[in-house]
């Protein structure tokens, strides 16, 4: 730290270059944090899955359905605490492009299945008692300005029905951008082709041990039926759902890699200019008795200072912006858009590494010159 003042002086020697380099670092890190957040939000379903919950769907595809009659048979499997129809309804509200998730469920069992949904007892019972009732997450309610008692019509292109619901409760925590309503209510309206079927059942197991037994027991019951099932943990289900989006994650990581490489070039270029300009000074420092290591560290310190300042601005800016404004509203099905701590930490570490690596070569080269060579250099 005794060279701190010297490093600081060197950083401010060419203010314009420093500002430009820091700005490049800041915008690139902002972009890296943003893209990494797209990935972490996208995979949130698998990283935050409840280990006791399982999902049963059609063995062949989520696009196919299984009979509602399976509910009682699944519920009777040892170790199963709750088995609830949890049916993707695909309802659209006014603008079909502006999608949100909505499920028809067994209202009586929902609270036990998803205890993370927080709502007053009065609202829970109002929802359970009204067949036409629905509950919505607070962020969805805020978005459309829905109040308890409002009537909302969803049109489902899958089931070709347009049921009208009455909002009986607004829950918080969990995924706050989802709407739930009674399975029986919408089932009754559906054509014979879809009636008495569901896309998935949700299961809560009594214990972790049961979660390995249940899938085998459930799937064995239906293996020879017209609608064989596939039961998997909530986490596995989320992962296979995500993998259907194709190699989206790889794609984003490739982009992040390219940004990091490009940033490295930018910082290396800027630092090598600044190192080269000071070749003569290095000669002077050496003449004064500075060792090669100390001189190398002077340059690394300078580069680190740039990297840390740039990343503080870029990463900090991204964190502040995404906390201040909720961008998930613009992305269908995304619960939130907030950088995780790991993202922040990893981006910062990346910036520090860029700072160190990008200057090492030119710093070592210059500090390795003899006094005479360095002093003789004309630029």
């Amino acid at each position, binding site marked *: 730290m005794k060279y701190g003042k010297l490093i600081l002086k060197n950083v401010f020697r060419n203010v314009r270059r420093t500002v*430009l380099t820091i700005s490049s670092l800041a915008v690139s890190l902002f972009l890296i944090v943003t893209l990494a957040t797209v990935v972490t939000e996208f995979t949130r379903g698998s990283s935050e899955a409840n280990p006791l919950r399982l999902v049963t769907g059609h063995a062949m595809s989520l696009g*196919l359905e299984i009979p509602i009659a399976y509910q009682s048979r699944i519920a009777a499997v040892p170790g199963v605490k709750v088995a609830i129809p949890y049916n993707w309804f695909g309802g659209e509200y006014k603008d079909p492009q502006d999608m949100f998730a909505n499920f028809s469920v067994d209202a009586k069992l929902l609270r036990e299945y998803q205890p993370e949904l927080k709502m007053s007892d009065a609202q829970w019972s109002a929802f359970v008692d009204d067949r036409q009732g629905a509950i919505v997450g607070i962020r969805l309610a805020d978005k459309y300005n829905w109040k308890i008692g409002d009537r909302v019509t969803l049109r489902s292109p899958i089931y070709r029905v347009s049921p009208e619901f009455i909002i009986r409760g607004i829950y918080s925590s969990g995924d706050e951008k989802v709407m739930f309503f009674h399975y029986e209510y919408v089932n009754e309206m559906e054509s014979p082709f879809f009636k008495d079927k569901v896309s998935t059942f949700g299961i809560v197991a009594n214990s972790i041990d049961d979660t390995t037994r249940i899938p085998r027991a459930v799937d064995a019951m239906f293996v020879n039926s*017209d609608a064989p099932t596939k039961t998997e943990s909530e986490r596995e289900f989320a992962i296979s759902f995500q993998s259907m989006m194709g190699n989206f994650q790889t794609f984003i990581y490739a982009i992040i890699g390219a940004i990091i490489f*490009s940033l490295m070039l930018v910082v290396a*270029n800027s630092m090598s200019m600044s190192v080269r300009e000071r070749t003569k000074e290095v000669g002077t420092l050496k003449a004064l008795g500075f060792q090669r290591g100390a001189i190398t560290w002077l340059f690394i310190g300078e580069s680190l200072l740039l990297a840390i300042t740039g990343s503080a601005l870029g990463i900090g800016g991204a964190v502040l912006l995404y906390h201040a404004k909720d961008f998930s509203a613009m992305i269908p099905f995304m619960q939130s858009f907030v950088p995780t701590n790991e993202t922040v930490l990893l981006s910062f570490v990346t910036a520090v590494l860029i700072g160190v690596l990008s200057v090492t070569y030119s710093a070592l080269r210059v500090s390795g010159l003899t006094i005479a060579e360095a002093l003789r250099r004309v630029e």
Partner: protein
Amino acid sequence: MPLPLKYNFRNLVVRKGTTIATALSLGITIAVFLMVMALAKGIDLTLETSGEPLNLLVLRNGSTAELNSDVTRENLNNLQFLDGIGRDGDQPKVAPEIVTVIYKAHKGETQGGNVTIRGVTPMSSALRTGFNLVQGRMLKYGLAEAVVSKRMSDRFQGLDIGDKFKVGSTEYSIVGIFEAGGKTFESEIWADVNSLRNALNRESYSSVLIRAKDSNALAALAKRITNDPQLQLKAEAEQDFYLEQQGPTTLSLKILAAFIAIIMSIGAGFAGMNTMYAAVAQRTREIGTLRVLGFGRASILTSFVLEALVIAVIGVAIGVLLSLPLNFVSAGTSNNTTFSEVAFNFRVTPWLIAIAFVFGIAVGLFGSVLPSVQAARFKIVDALRS
């Protein structure tokens, strides 16, 4: 206006490290932009070419995809004898089809995706151009046999000739591999429609493909079928059906491409500015000399901007070269309604390359104008004395 071009260009060579680093940082920006745009373009092109101009796709009214559609056999009987349908001898050009999906693991992974299986009749391939068997033989109708597209066979485990897969309780044998010139049905498995109906225990079809006699008949048929209250069906030109599907996916990709490109190019632009400011600062005395030799301020300004543009053009060229191999890469994405996988190729088209050049030159200008103005402003005496 005389320009000291040789002087500027030689400088690029002398300072090759900086030139390359700056060009490369722009090149990577361009490559990333092209990568995302090529993905969007690939999806667009796959869907654009998939519909035949005279084909009409009949779905259940309200369905958004074949997978969640339902056309009864009675419906089919009514459809077959409508006026305006093309004929092959006394056979109407009508193909009732059924669409379902099976889950398969990707090659080399434990995770996979849904593969579309289409139940077809001999008329199905006649109504689609580009169907081309490349290996094995065509399936025999009436048997539990299937042909698989080359792309799906390449992407998923257990979809080669000789492999078997199950639908319901029926086991299908794969007897052939086909290609289809990049159309969406190149992401499918084909089997006999009646056999598949039995396997799925299903009375009805998913969709009916109809070839109209001519474009007038196409419009009339679409109207006739959609407006018939008894049928409860919706007929749409096949081309329109595919065009509607591409909108949301590729639009969000294009927005992503623009977002990334703009932010990255700000970074690259700053890097360029750094380089050019350094170039100007180091050459102050030389600029003074040039002025003494008679080059005016405008000449200095222009020549430095041109110097930067050369770096930009080198950068774009690098970016384009980096992205060209993408043309040989295929990727898969999932259809929003059916959750089944659609494979397509990245496409770096000449039009995209042209956009990349315009874009790179804009970044070059952004990075060079201010430093070049500074260079042009030096007073001769000050410059020489520095």
